[in-house]
């Protein structure tokens, strides 16, 4: 027999604290679709995805209804297109992106990820074609998401690739200038990219993954915030060790939801279940904010002194709770700090409580990196590359995933507002120190070597 408390607290999480399954992402392996003939390649990609994903949305809705837990987004992640289409030219890569966009619309998923290249140690022909294709591919599609892994702890940092990405980001922004450079919101640059991320824009299906797999992304910043608020209401003397314990227990509950839904969707589709990615991923809705958690912990705003310590506490407790709840935790698992997608963080940027430097600092302890940050339109490609290089260095040296999703907003300056809409939100444009001057450092190119793994101070 269930207790009243078990039932009512679950309903509270669902109705008032925005507990949901943020995404069920179907991974589709396209490696055997490769062909020298673009038409055959496009046809095989289309057939493979539409066959595997045709029931994804209806099954997710059906399982969501059964448990009363909404599956908010259904998405697809495919093998890196730079590998699948290695023999294609950059214009043909754009055609492949269009096919991905079309098939995503047909099966009714909101995003399809995997327009991806892995270039941490060097750039192959297909990688170069894909990177060159990125601006047009992203500007001419709605649902395609791209990612490029430019660094890893084992390989070092590919500065040539980073400079190419700086150019690609500027061009993608210019091609979508009327929409505040929205193409860049669908493009992540990574260090140590995981192979099984269900969240966009970084989702792709790794080379070591099976034919098809279901990965699940659960969120729940509102659940964590409310748990902290309730705990302090009943005992204002709780210490941070006790708060960590509370977040851990909350993360456990949220992860269990993801695992239950993911396993059942996978069973229905007769596809292998992959991982639960337990990430505190905000949306621009009130009560669904990571930034608010910092205020519940006693900080004036995210960004003020104490933020890094608080985020370290949150991130670690989330991982511990998730790891206990499921033996299949993967992806990014931790706290996201996407500035424009979180009302509270966006407000912190507007009011000056948080800037680019503090955002970079906290990526040493958060789960991703400089995410959804609107920059002045005149920020040079060199400066964008340099910001990315800094962020990659944090990931490479600390043996963790870091990423950037930077949007130089054409025609706008620091303090102006950039509007991306929907889940991508809006944000004040953040100033960049020395943003439009030359930066010869990144022009040197080459590979920053992989770091030594001893002498760790």
């Amino acid at each position: 027999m269930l207790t009243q408390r078990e039932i009512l607290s679950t309903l509270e999480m669902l109705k008032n604290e925005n507990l949901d399954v943020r995404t069920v992402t179907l991974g589709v392996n396209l490696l055997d679709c490769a062909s020298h003939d673009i038409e055959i390649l496009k046809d095989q990609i289309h057939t493979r995805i539409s066959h595997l994903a045709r029931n994804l949305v209806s099954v997710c809705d059906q399982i969501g209804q059964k448990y009363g837990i909404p599956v908010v987004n259904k998405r697809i992640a495919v093998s890196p297109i730079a590998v699948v289409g290695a023999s294609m030219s950059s214009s043909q890569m754009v055609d492949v992106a269009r096919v991905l966009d079309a098939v995503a619309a047909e099966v009714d998923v909101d995003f399809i990820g995997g327009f991806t290249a892995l270039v941490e140690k060097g750039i192959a022909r297909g990688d170069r074609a894909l990177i060159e294709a990125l601006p047009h591919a992203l500007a001419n599609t709605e649902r395609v998401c791209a990612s490029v892994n430019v660094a890893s702890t084992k390989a070092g940092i590919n500065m040539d690739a980073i400079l190419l990405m700086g150019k690609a980001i500027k061009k993608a922004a210019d091609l979508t200038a009327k929409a505040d450079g929205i193409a860049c919101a669908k493009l992540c640059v990574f260090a140590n990219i995981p192979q099984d991320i269900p969240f966009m824009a970084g989702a792709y299906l790794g080379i070591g993954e099976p034919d098809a797999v279901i990965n699940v992304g659960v969120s729940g910043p509102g659940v964590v915030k409310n748990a902290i608020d309730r705990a302090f209401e009943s005992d204002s003397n709780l210490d941070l060790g006790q708060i960590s314990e509370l977040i851990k227990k909350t993360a456990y509950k949220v992860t269990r939801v993801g695992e239950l839904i993911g396993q059942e969707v996978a069973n229905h589709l007769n596809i292998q279940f992959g991982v639960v990615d337990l990430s505190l991923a905000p949306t621009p809705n009130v009560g669904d904010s990571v930034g608010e958690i910092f205020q519940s912990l006693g900080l004036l705003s995210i960004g003020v002194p104490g933020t890094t310590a608080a985020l370290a506490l949150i991130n670690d407790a989330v991982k511990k709770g998730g790891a206990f709840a499921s033996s299949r935790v993967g992806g990014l698992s931790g706290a996201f700090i996407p500035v424009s997608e979180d009302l509270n963080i966006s407000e912190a940027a507007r009011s000056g409580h948080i800037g680019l430097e503090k955002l970079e600092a906290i990526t040493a302890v958060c789960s991703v990196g400089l995410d959804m940050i609107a920059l002045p339109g005149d920020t040079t490609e060199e400066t964008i590359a340099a910001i990315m290089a800094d962020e990659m260095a944090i990931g490479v040296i600390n043996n963790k995933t870091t990423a950037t999703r930077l949007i130089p907003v054409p025609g706008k300056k620091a303090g102006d507002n950039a509007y991306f809409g929907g889940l991508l939100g809006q944000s004040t444009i953040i100033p960049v120190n020395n943003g439009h001057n030359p930066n010869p450092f990144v022009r040197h190119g080459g590979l920053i070597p992989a770091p030594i793994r001893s002498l760790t101070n």
Partner: protein
Amino acid sequence: MNKVILSILGHDRPGIVAAVSKILFEQNCNIENVSQTTLQFEFAGIFIVSIPGDLSPQSLHQSLNAQMAPMGLEVHVTSLKPSAVPVSVPECESYIITTKGPDRKGLVAGISEVIARFGGNITNLQAVFKGGDDPGDNIMIYEIDVPYQIDRQALYQELRRRAKQLKLEIDIQHRNIFEAIHRI
């Protein structure tokens, strides 16, 4: 050994279960299963008891009543016949239905009628029921077993339609979600 089912009803007070179990022990009876609850201040207990062949249900009732009546408790004892046990139960899965809304007559009757019409069996019913017009104060929780062959969509639709008529918010969820979240 024969089996009886006995029920005890009355105003709650310390020592009811102790008194009942003492008499059963003295009469050489064995408690096989028991469930007790209190609603507001009223006690209700159901005991399935195996009794020796030389003890009749009537004489057990007399023994219990002699001690329970002065405590203000009502006792019923009935023989448990094997035929009363259902022979075959269809395979089911459990759902939790939660309704929330202003207090009025007929809420349980309205919802339970739909459940019964679809062959669902209510295995537990709890009310977080304080009266008044605050919807948050009037919550009913039904645990039901639904046979696999029942059309879920039709059941959901009918429950939602009835809830709307009764001005209730309704949630219908498979039991596993609560177990997954709260139990290791």
